[in-house]
């Protein structure tokens, strides 16, 4: 996905055009977590700093933080995850998105990894 960037904490960041990005967790992350049973999403309107923990994904076993890749304001959260958290497992980069962030500095996205870079990162962690 050429319009998608990745973080070392296993979030994907998709540029939707303009200054809004959609954020979720990668397929690698959902596989490592296992069955997702609850997602705690940030409130719309919340201002978050870069690398700030702003969502939590809970599997049967444990809770894990999800970080904001860049500073910005939360403009939408995926309400469907409240009803069906397993969307994160079934479609992590599609219907299992977490929230949308309005970012101040789109140029900062260039600091994140592209898909090939993320794949190399995951392999280096194995």
């Amino acid at each position, binding site marked *: 996905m050429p319009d998608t960037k990745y973080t070392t904490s296993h979030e994907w960041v998709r540029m939707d055009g303009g200054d809004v990005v959609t954020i979720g967790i990668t397929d690698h992350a959902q596989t490592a977590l296992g*069955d997702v049973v609850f997602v705690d999403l940030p409130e719309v309107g919340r201002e978050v700093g870069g690398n700030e923990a702003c969502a939590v994904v809970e599997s*049967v076993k444990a809770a894990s933080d999800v970080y904001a890749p860049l500073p910005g304001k939360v403009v939408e959260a995926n309400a469907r995850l409240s009803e069906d958290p397993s969307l994160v497992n079934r479609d992590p980069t599609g219907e299992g998105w977490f929230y949308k962030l309005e970012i101040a500095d789109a140029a900062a996205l260039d600091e994140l990894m592209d898909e090939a870079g993320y794949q190399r990162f995951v392999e280096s962690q194995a």
Partner: protein
Amino acid sequence: MATPVDVLLETPLAGLHRRLGGRLVPFAGYAMPVHYPAGILAEHLACRAGAALFDVSHMGQAELRGEGAAAALEALTPADVRGLKPGRQRYALLTTITGGIFDDFMVANLGDRLFVVVNAARKEEDFALIEAALPAGVTMRRLPDRALLAFQGPRATEAIAPLAPDLAALPFMGIAETRIAGVPAIASRSGYTGEDGFEISAPAAEAERLAEALLALPGASPAGLGARDSLRLEAGLCLYGSDIDETTSPVEAGLTWTVGKRRRTEWNFPGAERVRGELSNGPSRLRVGLKPEGRQPARAHTPVHAPDGGPALGEVTSGGFGPSLGGPMAMGYVARSHAADGTSLELMVRGRALPARVVPLPFTPHRYAR
């Protein structure tokens, strides 16, 4: 937890776990499967529907021989060990001099000897404690060359029957030396899931053959430590180090039933003073089941408050998601004033108050053999 995987011990089934695609993680110094490719949720549900095979070979096994072995153990536990009949097993606690819990364990009477199974993380301490308490003529032998398998679920008994016809006749908490698929084994009708089933001790060298024979049975599938934890929490069973430890007493933990009737007249076990006082006056806190509203789990160490605010009344000691329950579940300690079933409480999860109620345990009914 930071132990490198290459210095971890392995159980006799390590090769099988790898072949089955198990995800191995460090646990009590061992590389243990937390789950297999099916995942914790599916493995949990498979145990409640059919029969699941768990490797619990990391646990400590030992046998005690000699006149006075039962009396020697009674110096360490409030359980009635002398009254344990041949072919019977009992859940028991090792208690500390101040009335805390040193460990929980199983003790069985095999006729010519006692057989004990203790927690993996406590086996060195437990065995040292027991050995130090033995009089002349009583010996303890550790059994590191034995594996321990748990075969648990509503179909476990019918499934295992072709391999060991005599097992179906074992009552709950009965134990027998038998052969399963030709492998000499010590099998008890017990477990840690709330389901019917067996815990099976077998020689390490034959453990893999036995495990493969059990996995080939109809309705059988492998399950890891993740499912073992969610199953035991739904069943309201304590995890040593989380729900019980050296600070919690048997009375606070709701484990008074492990104190033998005769022992309550003798009061000669470690910590008897505290147990006796708490039985007379009530403990200051109690272990309870906690049901959070909604879907959000509250994990261990979550503070518990009354709805009107104020200081914490206790904390969650185990918490997660119950796959069979279909929602979050927890247990923990709360002040006795707030321990009655139905009491409304709040769990402080990440700075927000999550409403919860005190509920009776277990979360899912036990289905032991009767």
